[in-house]
């Protein structure tokens, strides 16, 4: 049977794929590689035609097989010795180290969809509207832990305070939500109608409820109702009760670092303790506010001692993670300086000699590496502490809580220890990672001979002696031996 000369679109697609994949193959092997693939496709096509089995399905399968040409071509690329050497060189270079940290930050940004907690920190911390907004809670004189305020006291403050412009109670919870056929357990704030007045929020859609109703954030509106305006008035089941959606908040709205997604407005809150958000009048001090609120609470039969009421302004609360980070980084820095025996004296000695430029390069690389890694740890812990999983660790709002503090201490310590170890494993001249480790001596003959490992700079700038055992009094146990230019040719040959 004569082979059919009819050209199929599928075959053209296969050939095009081979042509594209072939561009990756080194030119010396490209012709043979393409010929092998094309002959296999030809034979398969002819076999199926003759057998009368050529169909759309078989054509699709043939095209799918042609996709394998890409990994095959990539294998040819990676199998090149020159490329491998180049890659090894790149991995050792200091720029690659910095680039990989930047890549980690970018990846974190992509995974978290633009670092929302970091953005919220900047937005809340710099917004002038938040300067007079504050959280109020109760801190007992004896025993630890913060507590909420009795709701009656909040009602009394709202009615009689002359220093507060407005005040509203709220409670954060995780009830079961059923809406638009979806069952979820979002972070919910139960509050009263005055809440949005305190925050100065205007809705994107609908009217903020004056008695009972549900207000959705933009993200929930988007995920549950796909930005459909008919969401207004829709029924939402929270726990056992059914409510109606009254309003949708704008995308820019943010409250609390963990971003509640549903707001339930009720006539009154029946909880024993509530958290409080308030807006003070211009020029009011914390001291005068404390005095007035304590006096009003007394008239409502709640007796607080002076300074038992705690205040935290929105703007200050937003910057708390930064302060925690500075404290954690300073503590870790001191610890690493003590433990790692950083040879500051030797650095000063080199600084006074004629190798000032090399010292500047090393210090600049170390600082940029540490700063970038710190930025990564700061953003990662901030985003994580705002996630649902972090609630298990007990971080609380408005301040970031102990979880963030521990995350920062561990993170900064890890960064500093790694940075010092990485710096020691690099050439003192070109800052590339040292290689060719060679074991020297016998660990059992320490008294008679030196034993340890020697590492070389791939460019031939010098070698590093790392002893197996370093005495505590010897600050310069690791010795760097510089090699002159006469050694360079030897290292170029071995690369």
């Amino acid at each position, binding site marked *: 049977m004569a*082979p059919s000369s009819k050209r199929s679109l599928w075959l053209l697609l296969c050939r095009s794929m081979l042509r594209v994949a072939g561009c990756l193959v080194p030119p010396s092997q490209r012709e*043979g590689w393409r*010929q*092998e693939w*094309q*002959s*296999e496709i*030809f*034979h*398969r096509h*002819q076999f199926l035609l003759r057998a009368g089995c050529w169909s759309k399905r078989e054509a699709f399968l043939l095209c799918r*097989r*042609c*996709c*394998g*040409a*890409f*990994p*095959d071509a*990539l*294998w*040819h690329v990676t*199998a090149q010795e020159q490329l491998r050497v180049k890659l090894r060189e790149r991995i050792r270079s200091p720029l690659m180290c910095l680039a990989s940290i930047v890549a980690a930050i970018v990846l974190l940004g992509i995974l978290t969809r633009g670092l929302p907690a970091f953005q919220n920190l900047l937005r809340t911390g710099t917004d002038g509207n938040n300067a007079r907004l504050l959280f109020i809670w109760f801190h007992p004189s004896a025993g630890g832990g913060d507590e909420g305020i009795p709701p009656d006291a909040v009602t009394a403050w709202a009615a009689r305070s002359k220093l507060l412009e407005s005040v509203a109670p709220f409670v954060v919870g995780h009830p079961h939500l059923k809406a638009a056929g979806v069952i979820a357990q979002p972070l919910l704030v139960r509050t009263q109608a005055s809440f949005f007045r305190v925050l100065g929020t205007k809705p994107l859609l609908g009217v903020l409820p004056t008695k009972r109703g549900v207000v959705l954030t933009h993200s929930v509106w988007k995920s549950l109702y796909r930005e459909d305006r008919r969401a207004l008035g829709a029924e939402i089941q929270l726990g056992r009760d059914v409510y109606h959606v009254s309003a949708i908040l704008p995308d820019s709205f943010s409250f609390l670092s963990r971003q509640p997604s549903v707001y339930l407005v009720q006539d009154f809150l029946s909880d024993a303790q509530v958290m409080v958000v308030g807006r003070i009048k211009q020029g009011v001090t914390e001291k005068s506010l404390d005095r007035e609120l304590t006096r009003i609470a007394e008239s409502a039969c709640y007796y607080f001692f002076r300074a038992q009421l705690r205040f935290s302004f929105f703007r200050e609360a937003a910057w708390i993670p930064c302060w925690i980070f500075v404290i954690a980084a300073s503590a870790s820095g001191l610890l690493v300086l003590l433990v790692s025996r950083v040879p500051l004296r030797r650095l000063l000695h080199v600084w006074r000699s004629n190798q000032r430029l090399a010292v500047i390069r090393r210090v600049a690389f170390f600082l940029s590496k540490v700063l970038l890694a710190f930025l990564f740890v700061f953003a990662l812990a901030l985003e994580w502490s705002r996630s649902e999983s972090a609630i298990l660790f007990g971080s609380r709002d408005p301040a970031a809580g102990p979880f963030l503090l521990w995350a920062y201490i561990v993170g900064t310590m890890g960064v500093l220890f790694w940075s010092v170890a990485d710096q020691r494993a690099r050439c003192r001249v070109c800052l590339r990672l040292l290689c060719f480790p060679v074991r020297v001596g016998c660990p059992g003959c320490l008294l008679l001979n030196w034993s340890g490992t020697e590492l070389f700079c791939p460019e031939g700038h010098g070698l590093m002696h790392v002893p197996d055992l370093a005495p505590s009094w010897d600050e310069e146990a690791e010795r760097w031996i510089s090699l002159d230019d006469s050694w360079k040719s030897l290292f170029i040959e071995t690369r």
Partner: protein
Amino acid sequence: MSESSKLSHTAALILQTIDQGCSYGFDIMDATGLPSGTVYPALRRMEADGLIASQWESEKKALAEQRPARKYYRITRPGTEVLEQAQKRYPLLNRLVAKPRR
């Protein structure tokens, strides 16, 4: 570490298929059920390691039949030894590959 201990199950399967007479890339895919993105890089690696050797079939024969020449693979002596060791490590290997119709 010997070469055989480095041979993965997939590579052993491909080597076994070649040993049983499947000489072309697409035939190996049919026999093993592995995708082309696995088979071809494995063939290249095994060829580089000297376990298999490749050869183009005669141009004259292909031209006479009005078709392009195909590249076929055959197992080498070291490849046979490695396959024997791999068969001891993976006893079910013989059952996995169907005998070709010759």
